[in-house]
């Protein structure tokens, strides 16, 4: 009798799940979902060879497998470690992991400029999320941060190396989409930098996807830079018949009013590009940078964003008013307002056109 074993059991933070052999710990944890999933800054399931670099996904392996239940001596990168049958993994239940992860986040933020108020990535930045969860309130770093000059990679993408955390994702995109490699890392150590070969432009129809995979604001869309904050724009799913071979034509449009401010690929709950028919849904530069009219797209509906960032609140789907609590804490007494200026002043008088009044408006203007 032959029984083919097609699933193996792995326990992550006391939750046991059956997964296919060859699954990594991180992907097993993603199948469970929620807080059990380690954060990942460099791993990108759609990019071959990515992962293992940022060390935010470190987990403790308390038991290697049923056959060999010894614990692993060091914390392991969950994105690059395969599960074994009977493996016991500790993520948030391990103090060692939390401690190491806090350390990694501190290291990542060490040379990061923290210029979120002027950064286009703010609101959908993975480093921001990570900083909120694991960062310290202050920095222990008392030296000058390293800085780089901004660099244009082609007409559509700007590289702001100062913000980069060297996750290598964009180099994998460039490697896997361009025929001739022009994009990579130069120098080493803390002065290592992403660069194209002597500031060459990446000449490829899919180069814009580097912006989508960048976890921070190091690679930004030049057609969107400083145009808007992401949380002011409304994401809608849309598609068009794109003629570029390899482009899935499915995108998220970021609208304000009727105006399309930005086009990105559709992302899943881990911030990665969604897959269609097993293929990552990369979009071409024509869709991303040149098709910015709603008429060119068939809009499917509001995007559901399941990531826990500021734009992930889904406030566009249902608008909930904050509950009035004054009456409650005042033992049922209605709040007594000193003056309700709206009912008194008539500022909201629809018949009145301020543009018709000469000079600044006076209270007498409203009393007519």
């Amino acid at each position: 009798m032959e029984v083919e074993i097609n699933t193996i059991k792995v326990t992550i933070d006391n939750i046991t799940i059956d997964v296919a052999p060859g699954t990594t710990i991180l992907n097993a944890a993603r199948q469970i979902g929620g807080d059990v999933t380690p954060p990942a800054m460099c791993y990108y399931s759609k990019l071959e060879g990515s992962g293992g670099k940022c060390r935010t996904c470190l987990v403790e392996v308390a038991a290697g497998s049923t056959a060999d239940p010894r614990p692993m001596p060091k914390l392991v990168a969950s994105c690059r470690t395969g599960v074994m049958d009977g493996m016991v993994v500790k993520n948030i239940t391990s103090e060692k992991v939390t401690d190491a992860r806090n350390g990694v986040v501190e290291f990542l933020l060490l040379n990061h400029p923290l210029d979120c108020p002027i950064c286009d990535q703010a609101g959908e930045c993975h480093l921001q999320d990570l900083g909120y969860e694991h960062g310290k309130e202050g920095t222990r770093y008392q030296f000058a941060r390293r800085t780089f000059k901004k660099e244009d990679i082609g007409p559509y993408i700007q590289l702001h190396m100062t913000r980069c955390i060297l996750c290598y994702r964009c180099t994998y995109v460039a490697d896997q989409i361009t025929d001739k490699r022009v994009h990579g890392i130069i120098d080493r150590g803390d002065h290592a930098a992403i660069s194209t070969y002597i500031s060459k432009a990446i000449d490829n129809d899919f180069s814009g996807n580097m912006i989508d995979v960048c976890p921070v604001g190091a690679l930004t869309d030049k057609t969107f830079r400083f145009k808007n904050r992401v949380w002011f724009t409304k994401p809608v799913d849309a598609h068009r018949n794109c003629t570029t071979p390899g482009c899935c034509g499915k995108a998220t449009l970021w609208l304000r009013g009727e105006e399309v401010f930005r086009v990105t690929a559709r992302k899943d709950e881990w911030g990665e590009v969604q897959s269609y028919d097993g293929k990552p849904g990369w979009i071409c530069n024509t869709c991303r940078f040149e098709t910015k009219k709603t008429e060119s797209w068939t809009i499917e509906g509001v995007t559901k964003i399941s990531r826990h960032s500021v734009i992930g609140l889904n406030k566009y789907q249902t608008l909930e008013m904050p509950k009035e609590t004054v009456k409650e804490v005042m033992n049922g007494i209605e709040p007594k307002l000193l003056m309700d200026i709206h009912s008194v002043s008539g500022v909201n008088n629809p018949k009145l056109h301020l543009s018709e009044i000469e000079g600044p408006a006076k209270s007498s203007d409203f009393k007519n």
Partner: protein
Amino acid sequence: MGRKLLLEKQHVEGIRHYDVYRREGGYRSVEKALKMQPNDIVEEVKKSGLRGRGGAGFPTGMKWSFLAKPDGVPRYLVCNADESEPGTFKDRYLMEFIPHILIEGMIVASYALGSNVSYIYIRGEYDWITDILDQAIAEAKQNGWLGKNIQGSGFDCEMYVQRGAGAYICGEETALLESLEGKRGNPRIKPPFPAIKGLWGCPTVVNNVETLAAVVPIINEGAEEYAKIGVGKSTGTKLISACGNINKPGIYEIDMTISVEEFIYSDEYCGGIPNGKKLKACIPGGSSVPILPANLLLTTAKGEKRLMNYESLSDGGFASGSMMGSGGFIVLDEDQCIVRHTYTLARFYRHESCGQCSPCREGTGWMEKILLSIEKGKGKLSDIDLLWDIQRKIEGNTICPLGDAAAWPVAAAIRHFRDEFEWHVNNPEKCLTENFGLRHYADAIHVPV
């Protein structure tokens, strides 16, 4: 006087050249090995107890037996000659003066492992040694020790020398393989280990120069004879490159039974410390192993004499011991400043970090900056605890051992010399002109006459 196996013929004139080397009994081990079964050679090396001489001290025979042998896939032997550890220069000596012993050892190892193409990856700074090795390979090939059908045995082996571009990280075996493949020298994420997937995705063994050279006496004399030299699990002889404040810096071949005290003070080896100065500290195995203060260096925490071998040097773990490492023996006398010394090492590791994983990339730079500010008298007391915290968060959390190598010297310096760091912080002006000296020892150090 200890037994010499590798450097026995070092003073024979012209030993660098094939004719003299062959006349002195060279390439005997190849003749012997080609008559043996490859697996028997692996067993022989296993029996000899030879441990990797590159730093980690992993049993070589064991490493060889892990090599995967799938059908139809080539296997490779790569010699790690990227000797970049500060304080280590033993491989340079061996390759420069007796290059044929490495080639001889590599032919035996290639035969044992079934590698038909073997590489020597040499650090870029050793450019003149590249020429010496190239010449030695040409000589060996001319005389039928390399190439097709070696000595009529039917075994083919080609050997190539590849120069690196001067990166410390390329001494890490997977970074070395990446570099050898022509890519950026970033360490790979393990597993898979090189024994399964190494050079160009094929099973590969990476060994240090001295390890491969040691195969020659093992085959010549037999594993039992070799294992008799030394003590416990430290068999055979070890090359030590001694430097720093000693009278006779240089390369010494020791048989791992002598004590550290004898090694530093006897005239046969380092010949004591110059100008009648006292011993302050020592790094016994190359810059990345923990530094030890004189009292812990000469005797273990249990009060036993510390010997120059793998077990004794690591006795007491990192709390009171160190490591044999690659044998880069750096001696510091009483005039040396531990803070400055630690800063120098931190600067090295910051410069050599590949920048791939965040703890090492950011942490090494941070440690260097803090150490510089303490060294310049601008540090705070809290900086010492901060340094400890940073090294703790680097160690064990990185892709390759460079993170550990950067963390250990800082940790050991704080562990054993914390008062010197505090003195630097508390005396910001004095520390620029004066030296802390030996004051931090509660007990007077026993200094041999």
